[in-house]
């Protein structure tokens, strides 16, 4: 019993940085539900990734202006992410280039520019901190920011849910009905950027998207409805966060990658034995057909 306590609960009672990290994971998980699931359903999984990286120059400029300051870096990150999203939307509307291509181009520019800025004005440690996050060094300000983003995301989810579903399923139908289907798309992109900025505090710009996308792709192996996908995604994200923190503490591993790897292991597990399209299940049914 004692061993279990020491392993699973003890670290969180003994160290406040572990408690903060856990709360941070919890906040991120709530955002990841709607964001991750709709990114997957809209076939924008990789766009989520590019959005996460594109916040970097904004974060770097925030860092240059006021050092490691959460509000400045977050605001910068949000503006940079939103700028990239708007500009790529603009490109795909006014040229024949598709959304994924314009996102990919802009995010590379953005990422390179960001790394350049940080390298010139900070140390390698700062760069590592921004690229890979520091979930064990989260301060009150970051926690408040992450909790606010989670709250805003949940509220917005309640407001735009129906519209977002119709817009994904049959965009022309919605546009014909109310003339502003694009409104949901823009609002959704704003939420994506907000969650990426929130995730970057904990997991860094390179891995923020890990805790958002992996649980969402995993959930598709188990449930079918949008609401159940969102619930399961949130749950998986939280479990990955908790288990990842415990393991990284016990084995003295870096937390960010451990958390994302746990989410990755849950994904591989679901891919193998998942009840919808799992590999194992497909092998079984094939055998069934043969006999």
């Amino acid at each position, binding site marked *: 019993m004692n061993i279990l306590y020491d392993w699973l609960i003890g670290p969180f009672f003994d160290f406040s940085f572990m408690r903060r990290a856990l709360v941070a994971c919890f906040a991120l998980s709530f955002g990841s539900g709607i964001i991750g699931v709709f990114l997957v*359903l809209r076939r924008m999984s990789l766009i989520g990734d590019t959005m996460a990286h594109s916040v970097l120059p904004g974060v770097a400029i925030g860092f240059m202006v006021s050092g490691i300051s959460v509000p400045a870096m977050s605001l910068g990150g949000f503006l940079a992410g939103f700028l990239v999203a708007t500009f790529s939307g603009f490109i795909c509307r006014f040229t*024949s280039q598709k959304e994924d291509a314009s996102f990919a181009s802009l995010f590379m520019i953005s990422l390179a520019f960001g790394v350049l800025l940080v390298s010139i004005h900070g140390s390698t440690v700062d760069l590592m901190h921004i690229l890979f996050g520091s979930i064990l060094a989260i301060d009150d300000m970051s926690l408040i920011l992450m909790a606010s983003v989670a709250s805003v995301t949940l509220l917005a989810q309640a*407001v*735009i849910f*129906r*519209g977002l*579903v*119709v817009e*994904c*399923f*049959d*965009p*022309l*139908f*919605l*546009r*014909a*009905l*109310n*003339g502003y289907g694009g409104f949901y798309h823009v609002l959704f992109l704003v939420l994506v950027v907000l969650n990426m900025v929130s995730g970057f505090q904990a997991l860094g710009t390179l891995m923020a998207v890990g805790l958002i996308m992996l649980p969402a792709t995993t959930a598709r192996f188990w449930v*079918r*409805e*949008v609401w159940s*996908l969102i619930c399961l995604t949130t749950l998986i994200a939280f479990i990955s966060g908790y288990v990842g923190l415990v393991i990284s503490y016990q084995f003295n591993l870096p937390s960010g990658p451990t958390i994302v790897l746990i989410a990755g292991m849950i994904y591989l597990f679901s891919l193998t034995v998942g009840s919808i399209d799992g590999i194992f299940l497909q092998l079984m049914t094939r055998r069934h057909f043969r006999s």
Partner: protein
Amino acid sequence: MTIDSLISMNNVTLAYDRHPAIHHVSGDFVRGSLTAVIGPNGSGKSTLVKTIVGLIRPVEGRLQIHGINHRDIAYLPQVTNIDDSFPISVEDVVLFGLWRRTGAFCKITRSMCEEASQSLYTVGLEGFEKRAFSSMSAGQRQRVLFARVLVVDSQLILLDEPFNSIDSRTINDLIQLIEHWHYEGRTVIAVLHDYDQVRKYFPESLLLARELIAWGVTKNVLTSANLSRARAMSEAWSDDNLDVCHVGI
């Protein structure tokens, strides 16, 4: 105005993706008419329907709908525009047709669900409410989308290629439904490919080939002279398109 026009077009020119798609179309869709929009691939049929719905604005000319708000039109987009792997129940798809009443926030009442069930019954899918849309066959999906058109209960119904890759039994059932709408006095405009269907069931047709070739009673529109003229024009575009591409590069 001597005729009871529902949609009147006056010298309408439409562009799609910044390329002109239809030139200088004028004419009227009469209230209560049943019209097939036909023409070779790329002739601008879908563009015309999208313009009537209000998704595209004419670059020139005027298109007016009399007595019906844009938002009250029942519109069935091409199936290729619909994400058929999206996880959603049949009932929810039909309920989207009530968007005018539910909007993004209002509660879905029991009577709305009954309306949805009733329209599913009409299209021959009684008891399919909780089934996943993605698990159905192409024909069943199209029946569901017709049920959604039914609940909109509109005086103007626009169908964009409703019978593409669908089994013949479903087509027959759905054509009966269209004839019933016509009988009820609703105005129906459908983009179609099968000329035999058009001859048999659609009293009026509009033949497009980036411009209006003919419009009126079907047997006067679907003449071999008109059809070969449309075909000749469509062969000319392929060269056109090449030019556009070269200029683009």
